[in-house]
């Protein structure tokens, strides 16, 4: 019997029946060996003619031994990677509610424009006179980012969020040094709820980290910040909306307190998707904020990257922005690649990366922004927030909310209080979601709540999709509370592979394929 959503009303018994196959394959799920197990050293899938005989100029540097890598023919290559792809879950597969990661729809128009030869097939060091369109993209993207954030400057080159954090914190360090306070202002405040990249970034740049306690309601209180302020404080790194999915209510007061104490406010903008077109960081007192183009502006996550992490900067930090940047003089853009060529008043702190940053991501993000427009982006943020709160409303009677007093922004945070005594952990619950066809939410982050489950549906989900998701999580929650422990602790049952032994991987690291010893020897 099916209900109105076309789902079985009971968990399917047939699905758990085992029919072992001879190959180990399960229809569309194929066991795929490593390329090293199927390829040959003499095989290549690329036809290249040998050059006419010539006199080598490699001298004594010519390679002697062989590399030791197999090749695959083109059909074998195609099949290998298609089969691998079928073991992956993507946004296009289903709902991907990974909190803090903003797994929204990746429009293929963005892929198409990024592949226009005028963008993909231009070299970062070809004459600047041959790339006016590339500078135009960078200026246009900058204009959008500055307008959406209400900030006067942006450094585009950082390669991802964490790299943007480094860029912003370096600008802060340079500004502090310029005031002659480099030796004293050495401490950065970081709330306990912060993403790991925040303290890691502060440490990378030579700051020491002091923790700011979170209040019981999941927010940071201005009194708690003030109590820590002093001549040794360089900055605070505060995420807003924060990692519990709450807009920090005292953010303006916190910014003012930092500034009064001669320190800076770095805002982690990973959660910007909640507030585009709704509130501007520039109105809140932010000095620097990175924007993950791969979250808010829909450039694909690609299995872990690449991303892009432009940093918007306040008037006070703008002069320290790293090279390269574009300076517009009398309407003409000029690419400034060396500190010595910087216009008066600019004192770049250095360089974050070779060349000019993630052009391929700029094109995708700008394509997204043009498509949505100001009205579409605002609607997207509102829908993202609406979707998160709808899920929260649909689950909060069964699952425990650590911070019920604040509305959620674009993500809803639950803890594992409700699982107490069931023998089911947050991890088990996540793995059971896999069996139901969902990617799990973010688990065990933020660290400030026990057994965190952070659900971010994004604006890309329809109401029907959310209803089905809520119904499924309700079924699972009831099962967890109803002594159906095995469903969880042994999950996933239906993924291409069962639960993996992560401890073993770390205890005896095997990080590359090594040719097995011949069978005869191995047997001894």
């Amino acid at each position, binding site marked *: 019997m099916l209900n109105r959503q076309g789902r079985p009303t009971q968990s399917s018994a047939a699905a758990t029946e085992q029919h072992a196959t001879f190959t180990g394959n399960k229809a569309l799920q194929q066991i795929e060996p490593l390329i090293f197990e199927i390829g040959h050293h003499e*095989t290549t899938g690329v036809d290249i003619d040998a050059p006419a005989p010539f006199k080598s100029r490699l001298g004594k540097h010519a390679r002697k031994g062989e590399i030791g890598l197999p090749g695959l023919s083109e059909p074998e290559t195609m099949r290998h990677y298609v089969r691998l792809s079928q073991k992956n879950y993507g946004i296009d597969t289903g709902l991907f509610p990974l909190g803090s990661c903003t797994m929204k729809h990746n429009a293929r128009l963005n892929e198409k424009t990024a592949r226009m030869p005028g963008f993909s097939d231009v070299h970062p060091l070809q004459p600047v006179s041959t790339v006016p369109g590339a500078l135009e993209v960078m200026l246009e993207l900058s204009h959008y980012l500055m307008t959406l954030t209400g900030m006067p400057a942006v450094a585009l080159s950082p390669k991802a969020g964490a790299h943007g954090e480094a860029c912003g914190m370096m600008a802060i360090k340079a500004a502090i040094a310029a005031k002659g306070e480099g030796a004293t202002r050495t401490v950065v405040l970081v709330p306990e709820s912060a993403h790991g990249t925040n303290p890691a970034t502060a*440490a990378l740049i030579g700051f020491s980290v002091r923790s700011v306690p979170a209040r019981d309601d999941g927010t940071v209180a201005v009194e708690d910040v003030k109590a820590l302020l002093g001549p040794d404080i360089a900055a605070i790194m505060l995420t807003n909306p924060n990692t519990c999915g709450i807009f920090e209510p005292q953010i303006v007061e916190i910014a003012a307190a930092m500034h009064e104490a001669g320190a800076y406010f770095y805002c982690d903008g990973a959660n910007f998707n909640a507030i585009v077109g709704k509130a501007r960081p520039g109105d809140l007192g932010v000095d620097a904020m990175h924007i993950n183009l791969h979250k808010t502006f829909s450039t694909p996550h690609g299995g872990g990257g690449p991303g892009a992490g432009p940093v918007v900067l306040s008037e006070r930090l703008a002069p320290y922005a790293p090279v390269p940047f574009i300076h517009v003089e009398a309407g003409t853009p000029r690419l400034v690649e060396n500190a010595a060529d910087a216009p008066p008043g600019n004192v770049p702190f250095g360089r974050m990366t070779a060349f000019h940053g993630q052009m391929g991501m700029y094109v995708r993000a700008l394509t997204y922004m043009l498509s949505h427009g100001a009205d579409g982006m605002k609607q997207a943020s509102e829908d993202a927030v609406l979707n998160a709160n709808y899920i929260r409303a649909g689950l909060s009677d069964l699952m425990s909310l650590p911070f019920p007093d604040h509305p959620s922004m674009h993500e809803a945070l639950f803890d594992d209080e409700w699982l107490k005594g069931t023998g089911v952990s947050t991890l088990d619950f996540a793995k059971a979601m896999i069996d139901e066809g969902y990617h799990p939410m973010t688990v065990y982050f933020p660290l400030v709540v026990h057994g965190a489950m952070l659900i971010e549906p994004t604006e890309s989900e329809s109401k029907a999709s959310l209803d089905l998701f809520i119904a499924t999580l309700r079924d699972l929650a009831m099962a967890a509370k109803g002594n159906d422990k095995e469903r969880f602790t042994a999950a996933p049952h239906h993924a291409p592979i069962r639960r993996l032994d992560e401890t073993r991987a770390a205890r005896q690291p095997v990080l590359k394929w090594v040719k097995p010893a011949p069978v005869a020897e191995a047997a001894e």
Partner: protein
Amino acid sequence: MRYLPLTDTDREDMLARIGVPDVDALFSDVPAGKLLTAPLDLPRTKGELEVERIMARMAGRNVAASSVPFFVGAGAYKHHVPATVDHLIQRSEFLTSYTPYQPEIAQGTLQYLFEFQTQVAALTGMEVANASMYDGSTGTGEAVLMAHRVTKRRKAVLSGGLHPHYAEVVRTLSEMANDAVVSLPPDVSANEDILSQIDDETSCVVVQNPDVFGNLRDLTPIAAKAQAHGALLIAVFTEIVSLGAIVPPGAMGADIVVGEGQSIGNALNFGGPYVGLFAAKSKYIRQMPGRLCGETVDSTGQRGFVLTLSTREQHIRRDKATSNICTNSGLCVLAFTIHMTLLGQAGLSRLAEVNHANAVKLADMLAGVKGVTVLNASFFNEFTVKLGKPAAAVVEALAAKGILAGVPVSRLLPKAGLDDLLLVASTEINTDEDRAAFVAALAEVL
């Protein structure tokens, strides 16, 4: 708006279910007066056709590498990428997946990372490789920090043959962390005395091969001296294809090898996204930055892969992490590893041979132009020529004639007194016609 599935009716129903009158009630934590009331001054929603036209107009203002005779290198190289690569990386399951934190539904990503790590280790001649850095330059910065952790010293010595952008990235990071850097002056002919710079305070020596001027270097004596003083040799490359033809850094004793992988599988993209390759001796593994993929088994004993040794990383170790990197170069890694799988060692060696042959042909032809001297004793697919005139102006004049001739050294090293030097790269894409056009135009311009 085509990307937003909710209808107005949906929105109303959902607000009612949540129990708030309107969506702004959900923004009640935004401080008074800070919630925007008017729309921002940006254009409105556009259809796909219109957006495509706008982007195409901007793209059309740039000169694409494949539309002209093209010899630009200096850290990014134009190579042919098989059609299979770009098709495969656009499969939804690769393109729209996240970092494989849930390994049971990310074995596709994890297996190609494991294969990638194996390929990078083999290419560089090293024991272990990680799952990528942002690019070669940031990877070099991370390698220096790693050497500081390993040696518990804080002074890096940078060769004058290191790409100037890479050196700048290292200097920026080091200055911020109060670490010392000794930068040797630009070393056009690979005859700097780097050995005398190594002392008992040195944490690492950073040497690029082929260097930014295209010279091939023997790193063996540098590795020996560094190691005798308890320092590490960091070997850098910007052209991974070179490792199909030259002695790999691992065979010369390098402790850490880092470089740019763009040449294999990835387009020029005006500088990014690219893919940083990072390999090391396995005894240093716990000090490595970035993600590592490792083999394990599932609860039924079947082989599988997971991210591992993550106690090095920011999400576990926070301010004690080996790096702050989180998002890396995932999809560029996939492009690299697919292209590398297609090539195999046989294809890579052949590709490298053709690159070298083309560069040799071009160098010999350029040497025949009056006023031009090729400076390199040895090179792979890139070399330095002396023009007797400011190279930047020559490059502009050639660009006006529809030839993208190379990178003036002055663009990377302004005010270094090297204004008449030009870096010229030649890969498999160049034809006899390209070379003839370049040489004829250069003769006219000089």
